[in-house]
């Protein structure tokens, strides 16, 4: 609202007189309410990815999940129903919004070539094809079908998988299946350390 000088004159004259004479309040709302920023946001129940307390979190996104909306995270808060955390979060869980919206996220596949001093961009197809070819070559070059005693061991010692502990059970199972099928024995995880 842009007040003109003319408005100001009216305002001061009439309002001032009224205030002086009748003691009325001029401005009905002295306090400006801040709008609850999650009032109509969508709620998605998730689990904090950090420690093994496994706190329930609610991720608030703008939009009502209608087709034409790309959800944007506006807030993350603890899930009050979750029996363990009952809505609470630690300083890491409470800052998850900054993890989701982080401008340091890796956004495209990259490769560092032998002797290279820089990352180079690479397409997903090229990256996955090269990786698959390397896995096959390394496996075929060094797969151990029988050990020194002639016992069938079907073991691959030249490829290792090291996994983190913030991915799902289902992901871990797929990894174990795939790696064991290749014969990988150097299969380790954050769970060890």
């Amino acid at each position, binding site marked *: *609202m*842009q*007040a003109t*000088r003319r408005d*100001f*004159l009216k305002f*001061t004259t009439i309002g001032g007189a009224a*205030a002086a004479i009748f*003691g*009325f*309040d001029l*401005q*009905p*709302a*002295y*306090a*400006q*309410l*801040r*709008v*609850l*920023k999650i*009032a109509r946001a969508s709620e998605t129940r998730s689990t904090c990815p950090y420690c093994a307390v496994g706190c329930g979190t609610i991720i608030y996104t703008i939009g009502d999940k209608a087709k034409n909306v790309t959800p944007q995270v506006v*807030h*993350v*808060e*603890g899930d*009050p129903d979750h029996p363990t*955390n009952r*809505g*609470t*979060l*630690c*300083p890491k*869980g*409470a*800052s998850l*919004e*900054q993890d989701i919206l982080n401008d340091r996220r890796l956004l495209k596949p990259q490769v560092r070539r032998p002797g290279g001093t820089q990352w180079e961009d690479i397409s997903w197809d090229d990256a996955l094809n090269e990786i698959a070819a390397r896995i096959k070559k390394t496996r075929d070059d060094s797969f151990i079908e029988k050990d020194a005693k002639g016992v069938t061991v079907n073991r691959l010692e030249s490829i290792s998988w090291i996994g983190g502990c913030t991915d799902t059970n289902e992901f871990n199972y797929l990894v174990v299946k795939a790696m064991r099928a290749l014969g990988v024995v150097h299969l380790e995880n954050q769970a060890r350390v």
Partner: protein
Amino acid sequence: MSQATLRVQKISGHAGSVPGDDAQREYTVCKLIDTTTCIGCKACEVACMEWNDLPFGETVFDNTYQTMPETRWNYWNLILFNEHEKEDGSLMWLMRKNQCMHCADPGCLAACPSDGAIVQYTNGIVDFQQANCIGCGYCITGCPFDIPKMNPKTNRVFKCTLCSDRVSEGLEPACIKSCPTGCLHFGSKEDMKDLAEKRAMQLRTDYNFPQAGVYDPAGVGGTGVVYVLHDATKPELYGGLPSNPSIPWSVRLWKGPLKWLGNAAMIGGILGLVVHYLRFGPKEREETIKQPHEGAEP
């Protein structure tokens, strides 16, 4: 939107009656902070920053776990860490969440000359309305807890709002909700005082804290934030919590016996302002202040 809990009962720099004062039944809200179960995790600091979308700032390592030396205009909630060696040689690591105390008799509000820059709702929340703030900084001197802080860029003063936007919608403040150990609690002043006294009693009987007690200083009419302390006789140990806070005498004088002087000066000031306005027009604001919500223009 429900505004029932946000009816105004006190307004800074205001002549005449106040809209919500004495208008209806209302309970006072209160934060209980049990320092004996605070682990200094700073979840409340983060929850405050995230809920209020406050901008991140620089910090430097300062030989402490404390995030920064004192609250900032954009960091309203700070846990103070203090290592204290008891007489028997054992160590206490005291942590106290520091923020606006939402005094019943707020020194900031008493000191503020700007109409409506500081209000107290009937539920006890003391809230700053930056739109009405003139940047004089009197509230800073009026506060016995050293809480209000000036944004030097916009010349506006900020502090904890007790999440008035959440409370008005029936939610608890963000800091309270996040607190992992439950050392923070929220409810009516009466209930929080009761809980606090019970906890202090438990600390005296079942744990070895004979001086445990509740901090709710009378000098500011009681506070909307009460503490349980291991040793209520020494609040200073907890990062300089004043043992008997009060509104500075200069502020009392200004708002009490000498109020007529101020009023006369203010009338003079307003007349001057009117003359100034009629001659030169409105003063353009130098920098755009990002308003949290569009409201009445100043």
